[in-house]
């Protein structure tokens, strides 16, 4: 399916994960990939191509911003979440929480987080 606008719900997995990764601190590309991999325990492993493809669209939609690279060893450009991106991430998280609540109501999901 051709991808829809990057800022419409539901968010694709890469876009949401990138927003999560940048929620607490600015990071550059490789650091984003590592943070996502560690946080999701290997469940989501982005390739560099996927990452930068998403980053390009998110920049265009104003969800994230580019920062100037620091002087010295680190020459890669870090990215920072923008207010629009933060708001979007919140809306997606709320949507997922609602979906989890529905599933719990139907006894498809237990009360303990993370599992069956």
């Amino acid at each position, binding site marked *: 399916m051709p991808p829809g606008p990057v800022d419409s719900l539901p968010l694709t997995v890469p876009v949401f994960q990138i927003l999560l990764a940048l929620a607490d601190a600015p990071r550059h590309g490789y650091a984003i990939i590592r943070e996502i991999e560690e946080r999701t325990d290997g469940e989501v492993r982005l*390739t560099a*191509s996927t990452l930068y493809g998403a980053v390009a669209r998110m920049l265009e939609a104003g969800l994230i911003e580019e920062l100037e690279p620091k002087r010295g060893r680190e020459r890669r450009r870090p990215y920072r979440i923008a207010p629009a991106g933060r708001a979007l991430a919140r809306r997606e998280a709320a949507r997922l929480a609602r979906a989890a609540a529905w599933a719990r109501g139907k006894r498809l999901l237990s009360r303990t987080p993370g599992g069956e």
Partner: protein
Amino acid sequence: MDPERRRAWWLRLLPAAFRRRFGDDLADAVHDLRVAARASGGRRAEFRYLAREARDLMSLARTGRGAPAVPWRGLVGDVRWGVRMAVRRPGWTATAVLTIAGAVATLTTAQGVASAVLWRPLPFANASRLVLVWEGAPGPGASPEAFRVTGARFADWRDDTHAFASLALFGAAAFPLETDDGVQNVRGARVSGAYFQTLGIGPVLGRVLLPEDERPGAERVVVLSYEFWQSAFGGRRDVIGRLIRLGGEPSRIVGVMPRAVYPAWPVNPAVVTIDADARQLWVPLANPSTIELNGRAHVFGVVGRLRGSTTMAQAQAELDARAGSGIDRHGARVRPLRNEIVGAVRLPLLVLLVSSIAVLLVAGANLAALEVAQFDARRDEFATRMALGAGAARLARQIAVETGMLAAAGAVVGIPVAGAALARLPGWLPAAFPMMTTPALHGGTLAAGAGAAALLAVSVAAWPVWRLWRGGTVRPVTARARATASRVLIAAQVSVTTALVVAAALLVTSLTHVRAQQAGFTMARVLVASVSLPEDRYRDPSSTASVDAGLVEAVAARADVAGAAFAYDTPLTANWIEWVTIVGAPADPSDRHRQAQLRIVSPGYFRVLQVRVLDGRTFTTSEGLGAQGVAVVNAAFERANGASIGRRLRIGAARATWGAAAPDSFVVIGEVADERFRGLDQPSQPAVYVSTRQFPLLDGMLIAVARQGEPDALAPEVRAAVRRVEARATFDHARPLAGILADQLAPRRITARVVTAFSAGALALALLGVYGLLRLLVVERRREIGIRIALGAPPGRVARGILVEACAIAGGGVAAGLVIAVAAGRALDAWLFGVSSANPALLTSVAAALLAASVAAALPPARRAARTDPVAAMRNS
């Protein structure tokens, strides 16, 4: 720019703007991810990561967007779609799968045999260090160039040179084996103690022969071959330690060797014969110390293991430096073991392999052309799929999956067929074929089969995938593009077919020429059999000479026998090369030392085998042991050494075997026509004949000519006659002389037949292609043809136009094919006989024949074009 970035060539796949903005960071991230993958999971994890990255990169390149996180979900759907499409086109599916299966089976079988003989590792340790060492003739161009080794020379090499880690002698041996069913002649090898250690192979049971077994007084031991163990002892494990009576003496079985091709029967010139019979058992040399003093009997082969990193050239140089002087001035020839044994079949096997690749290419082009033709018809199908949301890229992937499944189906059918063929192949090939390892579906062979299937899949998918990838949407393919592609593919098929047909023609012509060669002796209705007399009974020359004569008389007396003779070997298997001294005469004072085949024959031999007497006379029964030695030479001897009748020859062999009772000086009394000794395609060598009355034989070949009918039928009678003369004589391997020739011609014959079969198959495919293409063209152009006919063009001209088009396509293919044939043919020249690969007459005939065939294939469409009804054509368009 630092080296890491310079290497990121793949960034060029990305759109320019994206690359400028993100390229550097992306390359850095990829580098870091690689390193991390390698650190956590080694090369495999790194490779897996790179595969994912490549996939997403391609996706990014196409759309400028990232791929969805889980793209493989679609694959199952693709497979289901592929199955549905295949079922909807059963004719095409069946054709494709069968064609792929056939081509894959052919290639896999050819590769399996070739690798079993030429490439797969031998069962010997470090087999690349194994060599055969022969004695070498002093001058260049001497005939033969290399020949068997004497014991003395072997001892010299073993003790005083450094090039070899180990050396061993091997020589022919034949024993009467006493079994419950009487005496059976068993052939094997007598070897020096280090033989198996030099080869580097261990036993299946028991132990191998060791140097201790050669010591004087050691118990007589014997090691069995695997085949002999199975056939004579039923494969029972309790054979070790048993005694068998070989040659009248008990020998203890100490081991059984695994199946392999061992250097066993050396024959001159410098060839190791392979046939199952010659590899039945091994015994240590009797009297190695005596053998090592004998500098005259050239009867052994030598196998050696090079030391360390010594090269063959170095070993040869070291041995050459030790060459003596005078008559014994021989150097050495050091050659790789594998090459020596398989040399004769290397080229035929490669020819077969290349031909099977040619068949593969023709099949691939054929299928591709069919796909091109069908592509337009499938446009509706594609349009439907795209309406359901598949992008052109996705569609291309679906097609790739479809053809992948076809190829997999073809491989699943073809590879097991090849496996079955490979398993049966050793049974179909002549016993003398050097099957160095057992052919089977091993790694390389499976890879060849899979590769063939993959190649065919690519050729089938190429056109549709390319059109979709380029187009983005399914634009109608221009008629010109399709026509060009079709023409190129058909022409390609015709060109490869031409090359194959030329090869087949060359091979068949060679075979015909070889068969037409004059052998110099008759083979019609001739039976030969190996006869051995018991050594303990015939210890002196005169009793042996009289039993030899008795045998010939007894066999010749049979009603069905037109003539009989006894000789050391048949002309086709002659292998006793001797140094002969031509004693000086007034006109030519100094002695000359020459090599010649020594042929020991009964007096009636020449008459029985119809060898023509050119000058003088041949043997009579009155020239016996006490009389002056007489000899007959052949024309090749006279060509090499001048007129010889009346000259005296000194030949030591008879006296060496029988002592002073036998002559050592022979007067030449006649000249006979050349017999071809080493197959019909080798020139005759100089030969000297002596009579069995003056050089009696304990072992030899009995020759019997049947009065009528098949020689095979004579065997029981001849055996009975032999047994009546000497009850303990062994009588084995009775076969027609023509059968020996057939075995010698087997490589040529088999190669010619197989390549002819391949070229017939390729021709059928190519002609079908021509027919199919022209038919399609006619159908497409119906409207145009209809208009032309309506406007008055004679139908004949329309038909001719189609034929001309067929000629043009085929002509291009044939021309390209001839170029390939001439270029590749040079590799074949060494093997061809009586015909050269660049033979203009042959090339022209093949070209003409193929053009004519193509025109014939184009006739039905041409006729259909001529009969086009203009009204119907214009109406239906």
